[in-house]
């Protein structure tokens, strides 16, 4: 497929350049420039390239085949279609992250349909679509299935709005599908009939992930599908698949790189136990393992034979006790990434410290987030133990009920290379549990010691001091999440005036008001977005911001019972597309 030979010079930046001097002719013919640029993949690099000069801008837009849109409302389908004529792969992200925690009303937006309508017109050769936090209806999936004959790869992460009807359309019509990856979807019951809609001769699947869909699929159809897809490298089934069914799947696909098991709880005969143990042992290429619902000490050992090469073990659906967890870890010396539930407790984390020297990422999720059962979970001691044994640690997400400043100071001394430090002390505003001091010292140590820090989530009792330190030291920080913290506007101002690379700022339940909001006037245009909920911002402050910064969308989400002058939920983001045209009645664009 070739573009028209004459390239239209009507790109948006041309009008902006109309008063710059005429640029000297390029030393390279367009074809050479385009050939060179076709090797550049990163969208950040391509952005930089497009700003060099007009012919580079044009060469770049003609050679870009992968589109990344971090906020679907920052640009419109029409603008995208005008600028980029040859797109094969699109990544589109929608709702702000706090929607994961039910902080956004239903029907807020981020519906992909209008995008798909445009894609169908302008990019008939689209091959890949990766959506995150978007609403995707069955109608949209049907349109997708019928509009792109060469479509290969669909990834839906944290999306909602579809049922098995839409998935049936995908399975039936996408003859060249290599990837169907559905993660963390928040759907009502999606029936399982879609899996049976893949045609009998369809064999191109390389990635199949339906772990988060809750309905039973036809095992026979699944088994046949897996056995004929010889290139299958990722298979993540849902909880309805039993252990002995899994064994049959593994026999057909020992080449798997990534496996998500189904339920790991079943009464097995000794013969079945042996069979599944040997099936796992035959999976010599396994790098990533997840699922393991209801796994317990009885059946975990069947896994051991497949663990030698494991680099990522995701036990976030398998709350294990420390003993069985430690035994499993002993077989996984090559782990780089580990996700666990806090039922493993500090003792389990000590085993992590001693068994996983190569560990780079640790996520500990709470089994009992609402503290109904008063379980201990993990404490500062577990985190310390990991930091002592895993010096390569650079990504942590840690939910706990108690923490101390001293522990965090030591942890970052042991592991100064943190790029992502997300600490969630689960009781809002909780101080250092030994000294009763605010946790300011902890986060000061994090930002001072971890110079590569890109993402930070703070928690516990925090004063403005924490934010002073963040503003002063966190020079590489891109994402900051704040909850129940700070004393006054000054805190937020420090962050806005400090962190030069800040892109995403999300704040809830903190005493930052209009002065803080307005201190970031110039900054917000350089950021992707700002979220503030249940702070002290008023409608007056938001209106002022909107008036001063016309290239920002300032949106207020109204609660039914709220005071008309308070701005309960504020979402501010830069956009070249102007105010949303699809905003529901409870979203006010100022």
């Amino acid at each position: 497929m070739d573009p028209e030979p004459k390239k239209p010079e009507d790109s948006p930046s041309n009008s902006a350049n109309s008063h710059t001097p005429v640029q000297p002719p390029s030393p390279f013919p367009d074809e050479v420039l385009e050939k060179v640029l076709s090797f550049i993949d990163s969208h950040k690099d391509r952005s930089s390239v497009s700003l060099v000069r007009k012919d580079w801008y044009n060469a770049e837009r003609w050679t870009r085949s992968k589109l990344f849109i971090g906020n679907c409302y920052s640009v419109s389908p029409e603008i995208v279609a005008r600028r980029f004529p040859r797109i094969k792969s699109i990544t589109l992200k929608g709702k702000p992250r706090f929607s994961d925690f039910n902080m956004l009303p239903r029907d807020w937006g981020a519906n992909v349909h209008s995008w798909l309508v445009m894609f169908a017109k302008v990019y008939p050769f689209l091959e890949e679509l990766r959506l995150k936090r978007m609403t995707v209806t069955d109608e949209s999936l049907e349109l997708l299935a019928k509009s792109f004959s060469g479509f290969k790869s669909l990834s839906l992460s944290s999306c909602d709005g579809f049922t098995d009807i839409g998935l049936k359309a995908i399975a039936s019509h996408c003859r060249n599908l290599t990837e169907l990856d559905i993660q963390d979807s928040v759907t009502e019951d999606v029936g399982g009939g879609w899996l049976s809609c893949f045609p009998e001769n369809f064999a191109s699947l390389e990635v199949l992930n339906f772990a988060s869909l809750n309905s039973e699929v036809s095992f026979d159809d699944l088994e046949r599908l897996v056995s004929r897809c010889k290139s299958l490298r990722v298979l993540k089934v849902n909880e309805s698949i039993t252990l002995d069914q899994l064994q049959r799947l593994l026999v057909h696909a020992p080449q798997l790189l990534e496996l998500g098991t189904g339920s790991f709880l079943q009464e097995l005969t000794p013969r079945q136990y042996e069979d599944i143990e040997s099936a796992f042992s035959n999976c010599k290429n396994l790098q990533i393992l997840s699922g393991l619902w209801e796994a317990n000490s009885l059946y975990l050992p069947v896994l051991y034979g497949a663990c030698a090469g494991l680099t990522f073990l995701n036990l976030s659906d398998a709350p294990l006790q420390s003993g069985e967890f430690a035994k499993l870890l002993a077989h996984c010396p090559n782990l780089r990434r580990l996700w666990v539930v806090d039922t493993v407790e500090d003792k389990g984390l000590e085993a992590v410290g001693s068994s996983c020297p190569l560990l780079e990422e640790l996520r500990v999720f709470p089994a009992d987030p609402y503290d109904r059962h008063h379980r201990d979970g993990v404490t500062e001691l577990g985190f310390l133990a990991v930091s002592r044994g895993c010096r390569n640690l650079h990504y942590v997400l840690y939910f706990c009920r108690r923490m101390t400043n001293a522990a965090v100071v030591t942890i970052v001394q042991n592991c100064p290379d943190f790029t992502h430090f997300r600490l969630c002390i689960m009781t809002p505003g909780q101080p250092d549990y030994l000294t009763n001091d605010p946790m300011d010292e902890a986060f000061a140590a994090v930002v001072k010691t971890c110079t590569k820090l890109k993402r930070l989530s703070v928690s516990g009792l925090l004063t403005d001091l924490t934010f002073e330190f963040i503003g002063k030291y966190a020079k590489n920080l891109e994402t900051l999440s704040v909850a129940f913290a700070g004393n006054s506007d000054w805190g937020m101002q420090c962050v806005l005036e400090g962190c030069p690379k800040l892109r995403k700022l999300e704040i809830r339940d903190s005493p930052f008001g209009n002065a803080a909001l307005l201190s970031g006037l110039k900054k917000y245009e350089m950021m992707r977005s700002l979220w503030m909920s249940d702070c002290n911002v008023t409608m007056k402050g938001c209106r002022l911001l909107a008036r001063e910064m016309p290239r920002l969308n300032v949106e207020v989400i109204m609660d039914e019972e709220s005071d008309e002058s308070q701005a309960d939920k504020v979402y501010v983001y830069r956009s070249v597309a102007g105010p949303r045209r699809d905003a529901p009645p409870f979203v006010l664009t100022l």
Partner: protein
Amino acid sequence: MDLNLKATELRLGLPGSDEPAEQLQSSSSHVKNNKRSCSEIDGSCQKQESGAPAQKAQVVGWPPVRSYRKNVMEQQKKPESDGSGFVKVSMDGAPYLRKIDLKLYKNYFDLLKALENLFKCTIGVYSEREGYNGSEYAPTYEDKDGDWMLVGDVPWDMFITSCKRLRIMKGSEAKGLGCL
């Protein structure tokens, strides 16, 4: 017109006392009390007897865990039920627990007779209105959601799939459950 909004304000603590509201303020500074959704006040008797605070307001979206993941966590009481129907049974005052296999029983009558045998006690007869009033002991169980329920309220089949463990309570404490 004085609407006296303070009187209608949702807060923890006895009416007329200002202190609890301030406590909430100091521990999580600047939380707006009148908007906190105290949607799940966990006031079950179980909490009180374990010495923990009786009531805890739940804040929307906090802690920041995804809703689907939250549901998975609720099922983590699995260690007690390993697929074979065995559940732990404790009795107030007894030094150690026992384990029984619920699958061995066909109905409540058989189960209660077995419990009476196991612990050498009398549980008496269940009635919908009175529970086990009149007997020295009342059988209770923890269900999938972590709540403590009176044995006998739901159909047997529903009971055996949702029962995670049993506790035979002394009659005086069980009165609270029986007269709900």
